[in-house]
Structures are given as C-alpha cells and as structure tokens.
C-alpha cells in the first residue's frame, strides 16, 4: 500500500514538475521535508487502518464431514474425455488373461517381507527378460530387482485387460541387465533390508543374514547378471549402487510389454507370498 501511495505521490510530483517547472517554487530540499512529513502521515493513517482491519484468527469447533457423491457427471467434461478415449487406437478393454484372485503389493508382513503382486511381477520380469537375454547375449540372468514404487495398481480378480497392464506398470521403463561383481551385492542386500516397503525380487533369497542367488552363496569375484529397469539405473528410489556395474545391457523391452507378453502366453496369472525375503527380528 505504501508503495502505491509513494507511486501516486511521485506521479503527482512529476506532473507538477512538467507543468510548473519554470516557476517551480518547490526546491529539492522542500520536497524531502514534504516527503518526510508525508511518510509520517502515511505511517499514522496506515497503522490506524491496519489496526481497524486486522483479522486475528482462531478456530471455532471443527466439524468434519464426508459426503459421498454418485452419478452426477459433467457432460462437457465427459464429452472431451470421449474424444480422447476414442482416438486411442488400441483396444484397452481387450482381455489378455485371467487372475485367480486380487493381487496387491501391500499384502506383505514385517516378517515375510514380500507381496503377492510384487512376487508375480518380479517372477514375470525374470522369465521374460531371461529368455530375451539368452537370445541376445547367450547369457542367463541371476536375479531381478524391481522397485516397489514402480508397481502402481492392484491386479483385480478375474479378467485381466490390457488397461490393467497400463495401470500396474504405467511407466515407459525398459528392462536393463547389469553385470556386477559378487562383492558389490552386499550393498544391495543391506539397502533392501533397511527399506520400509519390500522391493520385489526374483532369483534371490534373503533369510536373515543368509543370502542366496540362484540357491547358491554369493562369490565375491563372480560376475552376476541382474535385471533391473532404467529408472533404477539412474539412481531412482535412491538405489545409487547400480552404477557400480561392469557393464549394462539394454534389452529394448519394457516392463509393461514383458507383463503383457507373459500374460498373453500363459493366460492364467498366479502367485503367492513365500519365503524369499524373511526378516528375523
């Protein structure tokens, strides 16, 4: 407000100077004294007005309510959505397989630190990427690590539609295989143990202090092939250790395509919580 008044004053003063410059009887010194008095008045008036307008706030009794709304949809918005929906050229309602139950990533316990959906996804990534890696590099994968946060929806019971694949694995992330020495794996294991949510894995068993890859103890000088995704390779979800790799193999195969391909060829999806990750108190 003071700025505004100062602006108005300045403007008026300038107009005054333009019209009355020749016989202007206000000197620069006069102006400053005037400005000083002017500011004092501004301060006085604004203090008064602020005191009069100040909103001191406090809460009254707080009421909470929860209203459920059904049925009412905006036609304008629905019309816009339908234009976009119709222009998606793949049929997202196509059934690609079946699921025997509801799978979620949240059904883990603090002891059995793995989930039905997490295991399903990690196992699918293992099977699909192992076969591609075999063809491309004639090598096998040792284990898979998939970030918990990369799985974004639950898999409903019954028909599995193409749209479910997009909802569960929405990101355009590709599978990458990294080559790492056994001596670097302990950092991964301790990270997984310290997380509050279980990152799904496959081909790996962590039972307290015992760690097995393909049912064997880790050899420090052995090279291991780990299937992750390119988000994790960039340090995603704070997994900065994957850059300690010897080599990266890009499969050009997305997580979602792996899921779709597996579902289409196997039709029935099934998985359960098992003993792959046991936390001993």
């Amino acid at each position, binding site marked *: 407000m003071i700025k505004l008044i100062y602006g108005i004053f300045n403007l008026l003063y300038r107009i005054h100077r333009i019209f009355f410059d020749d016989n202007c009887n206000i000197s620069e010194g006069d102006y400053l004294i005037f400005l000083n008095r002017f500011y004092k008045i501004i301060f006085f008036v604004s203090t008064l007005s602020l005191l009069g307008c100040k909103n001191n706030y406090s809460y009254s009794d707080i009421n909470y309510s*929860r209203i459920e709304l059904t049925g009412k949809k905006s036609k304008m*918005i629905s019309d816009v959505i339908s234009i976009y929906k119709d222009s998606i050229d793949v049929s997202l309602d196509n059934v690609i397989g079946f699921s025997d139950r509801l799978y979620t990533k949240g059904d883990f316990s603090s002891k059995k630190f793995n989930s039905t959906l997490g295991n399903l996804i990690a196992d699918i990534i293992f099977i699909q990427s192992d076969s591609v890696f075999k063809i491309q590099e004639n090598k096998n994968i040792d284990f898979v690590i998939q970030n918990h946060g990369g799985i974004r929806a639950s898999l*409903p019971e019954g028909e599995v539609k193409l749209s479910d694949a997009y909802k569960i694995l929405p990101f355009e992330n590709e599978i990458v295989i990294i080559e790492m020495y056994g001596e670097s794996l302990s950092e991964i294991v301790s990270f997984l143990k310290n997380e509050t949510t279980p990152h799904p894995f496959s081909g790996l068993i962590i039972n307290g202090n015992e760690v097995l890859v393909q049912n064997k103890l880790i050899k420090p000088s052995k090279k291991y092939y780990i299937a992750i995704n390119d988000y994790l390779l960039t340090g995603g979800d704070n997994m900065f250790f994957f850059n300690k790799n010897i080599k990266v193999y890009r499969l050009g195969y997305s997580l979602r395509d792996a899921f779709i391909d597996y579902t289409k060829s196997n039709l029935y999806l099934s998985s359960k919580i098992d003993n792959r990750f046991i936390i001993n108190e």
Partner: protein
Amino acid sequence: MNRRKFIYNSSLASLSVMGLNSCNLNSKDLTITILHTNDVHSQIDPFPSNHNLYPNKGGFARRASLFKELISKNPNTLIFDAGDIFQGTPYFNFFQGELELNLMKKMDYDAATIGNHEFDAGLKTFKKNILNNDFQFISSNYDFANTELEGLVDKYKIYHKGGIKIGVFGLGIELKGLVNPLLYAETKYYDPVDIAKDISSYLKYEKRCDLVICISHLGHQYQNDKISDTVLAKLTSNIDLIIGGHTHTLLKKPLILNNSTGEEVIINQVGSGGVFVGKIDFNFTNNNKYTDKSIVEI
C-alpha cells in the same frame, strides 16, 4: 503552496478510500472455500467396477460437476492440486499429460504444484501442455532457470476473494534419487524449509495476506527425518494450511499441528486417484477467522 495542499489532501483522500476498502469485511461474514486434490495420477475415468477399493468412484467428469456445484454455492472458492497429476493410466501414455491439464483448466482449478511425475514426459512436453492449456503451476523451491520451464512457473500467487487476500506458494520434493536426471535437466531444488520460511513471512507481512496456503508435494510424514508436511509445519510459521501430496495419504480429517511459534497449522491430504476432494472452509466473521473442515467423497 495551494498545489502542495491539494496533493496532500488528495493523497489523504485516496488513503482513506483504501482504508475503507480493506475494512469492508467487518460488515458481513464471509467464507473462503478451499477445494483440493492430490496424486490424481491420470485417473480420468472413474475406477472400474472390479476395483478392490473404489469401484466406479471418482473420475474427472464427476469431480467437475462437484466443483461447479460448490462454486455456485460459494463463489469465493479456490481449487488446488498438490501434484502428481500425471502417470497411472493409458491416457498419460498416449497423450502425455495434455488431457489432464485440458480438463483441469475447464474444471476451474486455480493452480497446482509440481509433483515428481510431472517430469515424466520430459520438460519440453510439459511446457507445451502448460502453454496450450494456460495452466497455472506454482513452485517456490524448484528453480527452472535455463530449462524449458523458465518463466512458466510462479513462485507464489495471490488471490483476492471477497476482500480476503490469499497467498499461495508451492513446494516440491527432492528430485535426485527420485526422477531420472535426464527428465528434470537443469532444474534446481532448494531446501523447502528455508524457502517456506521466507515466502510465508513475505506473503503474510509484506503482502499482508489474510491466509497463507502451501501446496506441497513433499509427502505427509516419513519414518526417518526426511522433510515432510508434518516436519515443515513444526519448523515454520505464518502458514495457515498445508495441502499435501506424494505419499497418497488419506486422512480421515485434517491434521492440526502447532508451528514454531505455537500457532495452529492445518495439514490435509486426500489419498490418490481423485476419489476424494478435500474441502476446507475458512469463515471470516468480523475479527475472527474460523475453519470448518470436511472431506467430500465423490
């Protein structure tokens, strides 16, 4: 001297007019309604009928209708989203965020803050969608200088509703370790607490806002000491309301904490997927501000 007197008098006159304007609340009660969503994640359609938690619930068309109804009941309504508008359904894979912002503009969202998934299609596509839809993003602790978004995102925004001045700023989460560096490019992240302290006091004292609202994508609370809405609330002052996101936390009712000077801060977050809309009413009556809080399920 007469002229001087004239300037003097006219200035005083304009002052008193301003004084009267800023006092016009005293004559009647007024409610500022804040509606908010977070982590909608491209859930354009309602959830499908076989969804385990929210069958047939939510969806943009239904939310638009609710907003319209609530705005008609109280024109002094502001609508904010706390980020992660994008990613989660094929609509994002196919249209890269264009549909989300198009609809949110049409539904009268006033602004949103930038969530980590807003970077998913890259800054270039994000820029195109912001410009095409003239959508307002607010982020105070991301610096987009030398990126595609330079000049497109405001540090804060002040809204005037029925004589009440509402200052709004936004906070984003640390991008390192969360977003692919290729996607966020030269975007810089600054400490949300420092930024929040500066900007909230600026809005409250220099800009004399009656309400200061923070739209945050920091997350509600963590087990470690990572910065979150609850930590932010305790470490700062001058914030009235924190609208949260990122952790998909569905609060039954807003959490009220004391800030660093012992004043109350309201924190709210309404899950994800746009099933819920948070509604917070600030009732201004004479010299008191009251709040009623409700969560609306759609």
